């Protein structure tokens, strides 16, 4: 059981490293689905693996061996996973269960709050204009969903810019993107190693909405410029004029490796539309399936071991 049970614990680490490069290369809709489903599958597999390790340690308790009528010495002899490992696995499993419960409750309440507020807003129309100094625009999931935009932002944008902004937010509501991000973050609660995947999903849903807005308005550069303009409005005083000159003179190729989501989104929109990468997608799916098979195999091994122990008693 040793090798197959540890594979589902190692693959999530591999996935965590691959998350951001995948998010950058995959077409956003495919990327969102893949990353979300992979996060769920890997969280499930790692949880199963931990449970199996914990179970194999628990099975070595003499008292239980008597109760269950199986040979404790057979298990101890055959199963290389030590009792210490199993105990650690049990502790981690408990912590994961608590983390998922807490995260679930937190997000469920936030979602319920969102639905309540969305319902209580002005009954006509999806777009709600917000007074105040803040520069904000976001989609509020609900039934019906709402788009909240600060009046200041609407005034600062021209007509095409407003169209781009609203198309982006409408994509979030229509695509129910909050479901993807919620599920991915719940998976990350079960296995914190998967947090980069959840963050990658946060990014790909933005790209998904950006590409939708680009299709709707028919102008990729418009959406890119709108993002840039809103970003600048939202964070005033970030760029003194002198620095601007230095940046332009110096670099030719912009390194986006460690950049935040906003520059990456703008860069993606200034480039060609993303295309479907079936091979990459298939490879990723294969690895996830392999992990699942691994977990199943480990479970079968433990089951066989228990049967052997029962027969030997």
């Amino acid at each position, binding site marked *: 059981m040793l090798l197959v049970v540890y594979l589902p614990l190692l693959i999530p680490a591999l996935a965590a490293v691959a998350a951001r490069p995948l998010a950058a290369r995959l077409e956003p809709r495919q990327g969102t689905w893949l990353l979300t489903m992979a996060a769920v599958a890997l969280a499930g597999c790692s949880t199963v693996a931990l449970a199996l390790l914990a179970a194999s340690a628990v099975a070595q308790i003499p008292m239980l061996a008597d109760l269950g009528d199986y040979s404790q010495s057979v298990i101890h002899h055959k199963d290389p996973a030590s009792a210490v490992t199993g105990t650690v696995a049990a502790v981690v499993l408990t912590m994961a269960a608590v983390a998922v419960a807490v995260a679930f409750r*937190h*997000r469920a*309440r*936030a*979602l319920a*709050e*969102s639905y309540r*507020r969305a319902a*209580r*807003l*002005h*009954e006509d129309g999806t777009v*709600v*204009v*917000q*007074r*105040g100094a803040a520069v*904000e*625009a*976001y*989609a*509020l*999931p609900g039934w019906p969903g709402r788009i*909240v935009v600060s009046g200041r932002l609407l005034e600062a944008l021209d007509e095409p810019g407003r169209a781009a*902004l609203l198309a*982006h*937010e409408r994509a*979030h509501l229509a695509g129910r*993107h*909050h479901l993807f991000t*919620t599920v991915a973050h719940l998976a990350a609660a079960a296995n914190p190693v998967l947090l980069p995947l959840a963050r990658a999903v*946060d990014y790909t*849903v*933005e790209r998904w*909405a950006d590409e939708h807005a680009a299709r709707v308005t028919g102008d990729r*550069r418009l959406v*890119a*410029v709108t*993002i*840039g303009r*809103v*970003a*600048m409005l*939202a*964070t005033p005083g*970030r*760029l003194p004029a002198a620095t*601007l000159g230095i*940046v*332009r003179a110096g*670099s030719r190729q*912009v390194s*986006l490796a460690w*950049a*935040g*989501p*906003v*520059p990456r989104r*703008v860069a993606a929109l*200034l480039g060609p539309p993303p295309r479907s990468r079936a091979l990459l997608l298939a490879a990723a799916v294969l690895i996830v399936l392999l992990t699942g098979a691994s977990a199943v195999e480990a479970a079968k091994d433990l089951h066989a071991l228990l049967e052997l122990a029962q027969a030997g008693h």
Partner: protein
Amino acid sequence: MHQEGPGHPSAEYPEPRRPAGSLEAEVLAVLRAAGTALTPGQVRERLNARQRGELAYSTVVTIMSRLHAKGLLARERAGRGFAYTPVDDASLAAGQMNRALDGADHDAVLTRFVSGLSGRDARLLRHLLDAGEDGG
């Protein structure tokens, strides 16, 4: 202090069984559509014109007082009673929303159009957009 209007017995017709929340919503809808302050009597007339059933005057008065207590309606003296107007609901709801969402985790549910921008990101952004302009 509000008073009952002229002779509307409350048990004239059986009230349609609607949940209280939706009655409040209908009252608000009538007031918004009117664009002017309305007394409970006027609201009742318009509500009954819309619906198949009849609402009792006392029911309408209760609903409107409740909405006033919740801060959703403003009222002014009109004759022996009050006339009500809806509080500007866009700013009200947004204000409520801000307070509520400050408590909750924004990221839990909202996908902001633009997230926070570091100094480096701001420079990158300028570079990308200026370079794009030159090239495009």
